[in-house]
């Protein structure tokens, strides 16, 4: 087994004065160098919280972790430099063009000027934004913005990448492109990737291992085959529902009964 890129011990995060909202509850997780790890879980499970913690954007309220061998608290500077993040609901500067925004992001990560220029240009071409590169981002569609943000996450070519719901706003073509890109980054560029997604086929195809998180707790972790074996199901979807619990079918239309719906 290769070396751990991410290793957390009892990593926890609570929100609110008295720690009422337990967003992440004693997470113990290892992500190995070079693997693609999928983080699954219902809305509000704590995926984004985990990603933010591991990128040193928020501070843990308990436990510890290392990322790339650096301690989460003491080594935050090194960690921030070696990770790239596509945030779930990222902020950007709407009044900058795609080109300007990537230059800005490059500057934030101290990418040398000559490298930055060629890299910006290549990324813009890769995402098919070349003809619009000088348009302000305010006029971009959500999917186009998402492409710019993915490019921005790659601008300093970090060895560890986090993608929080990368394809949820993309059209099928673009989603496919991003999926292939992630695959390429893992297979041919040796990147370690952590991806949060609800789109199970993508997780299934990309991820070496997955972890399922529910109400702040990691409830299952392993390869897809291991999860299927554990639950005795034959698809990832069924296994996922089995682990996290779904809505009973007969309840789905219960809201209509009171009004005496006939049709």
């Amino acid at each position, binding site marked *: 087994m290769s070396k751990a890129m991410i290793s957390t011990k009892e990593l926890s995060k609570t929100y609110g004065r008295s720690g009422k909202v337990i967003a992440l509850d004693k997470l113990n997780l290892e992500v190995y160098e070079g693997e693609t790890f999928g983080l699954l879980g219902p809305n509000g499970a704590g995926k984004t919280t985990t990603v933010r913690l591991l990128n040193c954007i928020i501070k843990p309220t308990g436990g510890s972790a290392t990322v790339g061998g650096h301690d989460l608290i003491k080594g935050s500077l090194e960690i921030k430099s070696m990770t790239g993040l596509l945030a779930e609901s990222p902020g950007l500067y709407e009044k900058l063009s795609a080109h300007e925004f990537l*230059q800005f992001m490059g500057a934030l990560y101290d990418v040398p000027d000559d490298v930055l220029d060629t890299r910006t240009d290549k990324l813009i071409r890769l995402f098919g934004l070349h003809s619009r590169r000088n348009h302000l981002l305010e006029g971009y569609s959500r999917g186009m913005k998402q492409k710019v943000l993915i490019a921005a996450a790659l601008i300093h070519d970090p060895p560890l990448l986090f993608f929080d719901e990368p394809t949820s706003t993309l059209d099928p073509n673009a989603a496919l492109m991003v999926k292939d890109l992630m695959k390429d980054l893992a297979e041919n560029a040796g990147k370690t990737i952590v991806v949060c997604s609800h789109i199970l086929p993508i997780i299934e195809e990309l991820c070496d291992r997955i972890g399922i998180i529910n109400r702040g707790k990691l409830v299952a972790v392993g390869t897809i085959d291991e999860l299927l074996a554990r639950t005795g199901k034959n698809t990832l979807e069924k296994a996922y529902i089995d682990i996290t619990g779904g809505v009973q079918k007969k309840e789905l239309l219960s809201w209509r009964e009171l009004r005496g719906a006939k049709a």
Partner: protein
Amino acid sequence: MPRRKWLVLARNSYMLRTSGFGRFRYIVPLLIGVPIVGAIFAFVPWITNFFLDEVEVFFVSTAAIALIQIVLFTTFILFLFFPISFSLNSGQEEYYEILLSAPLRPKDVILGKFLGDMPFYSVGVIAVASVFVALMLPLGLGVIQGTLITLIFMLTFFSALWIGVVIAAMIRSKIGSSTRGKDIGKALSMAVALPMVGLMYALMSGTVYTALLDVESSGPLPFVLDLLPSSWGANVVVDFAVSPGDASGISLENTLRVGAMAIFFVGVLWAGTKFADRAYNLESQSLSSNLARQEGVFYRAIRAISGGGAFGTLVVSVFKDYGRRLENVSKIVYVIGLVALVTFFFGDAEDAEGGIIMMFFLLPFLAGFIVGEVTIRGKENLFIYRKAPKGELRLVRARLVQSMLVMVPLTVVATAIPLLMMSGASTAAAYMMVPYMIALSAALVVFSLGLFLMWPVFSEKPADMMANVMILTFFMMGCFFVTLFLGLFGEVNGWLFILTLTSIAGAIALMLGVRNLRALE
């Protein structure tokens, strides 16, 4: 039977506004209006009685018509511009989208909102009218006359309000609900405020009043005013004052005038709904997406000033995001325009100190407007910096440099205006104020940045920004009064005292602000 949609919407709009009043909501306008009008009728006639002779003399003079014309005209303009400015500033598209996705016509939406707000505006209008009626009661004004005067005020102002509402809707549909459209709207809302303020100042300083009294030499102004519907009523009001009493005072001419006003109002209302239906739709032509222009001398200079390299790119980036928002540019024009107006109308040619004092109250606004941008793009935007190594420090430094680069030239301009306009200021000491104000504005930028990081404002609503601006303003006022109290005002020690205090407060605020920025989640 299809419900009258505008009536439904009017009700909805009214309910929204009164939601805080619980079961009293239906009588809110009465609750506000009755005490006000009652108080006016209790006190004003009592005061008039003391000056009855003067009041009578006043109403037979030409000054009366002029004054009432001005009052009606000012309020007319205010009522016209208020909805324009307000509606352009607040982007309500999401709300309208819900409404217009229902089977409604634009006319219903606009008319509904107008009627829903009418009870509240009525309170204001009736209060203004009551002042005049109460003022004239001791002259022997009749009940019908009083009612007619109130009616005149209402017709005048509601015509104005409705025109304003329709114009606002039309501008909105022209500029669209795109990001860029919103941007233009915000800029326009500031831009239309400036002439309004100018008008107010002109009235307050008496320039217009003098012009109206002096009919021969004042050119076209009185003539133009006479053409406006707001002035038709002024004649009636004055006529009533000259010949009070229902039996004798109501002439055919005056009846016609009031009738004409009523027709004007109905006509405006009708034309407005026609316009609204045609002009206002949601599929507003979206403006072509904007290109980022090639970096010119300006941004290259800024890059150079901030030392080039990665930091230069950061400063240029935040500067571009700031400068490309028309709204920011118009805020600056507004503040500088304000300085010019105040100096022009109230400036005392001998007294440069007055202009300098004004700066104490202006710089906080300027600093707040400029620095407030730092958190306005939301938490997610701050997280970009949080993610980057040493990102928080980079953000603070880039913002400081960018804000100074905007603030310093503006401070020079704003200080120079009173200095140049006032002859009494052409001393070396007065010109020393320029570097002083630059230092003070720099300290205020630091202070302001600290405040906005301590209490971040994540929305573009001007009201939310005001809290921090108010803190700055009160701080400056405090400094000002302490110096006055210590007897240091106008002396070098006093100036230095203020500067030192502001710098210290700024440094502390910035320290706390950065700490909060690091802990934000």
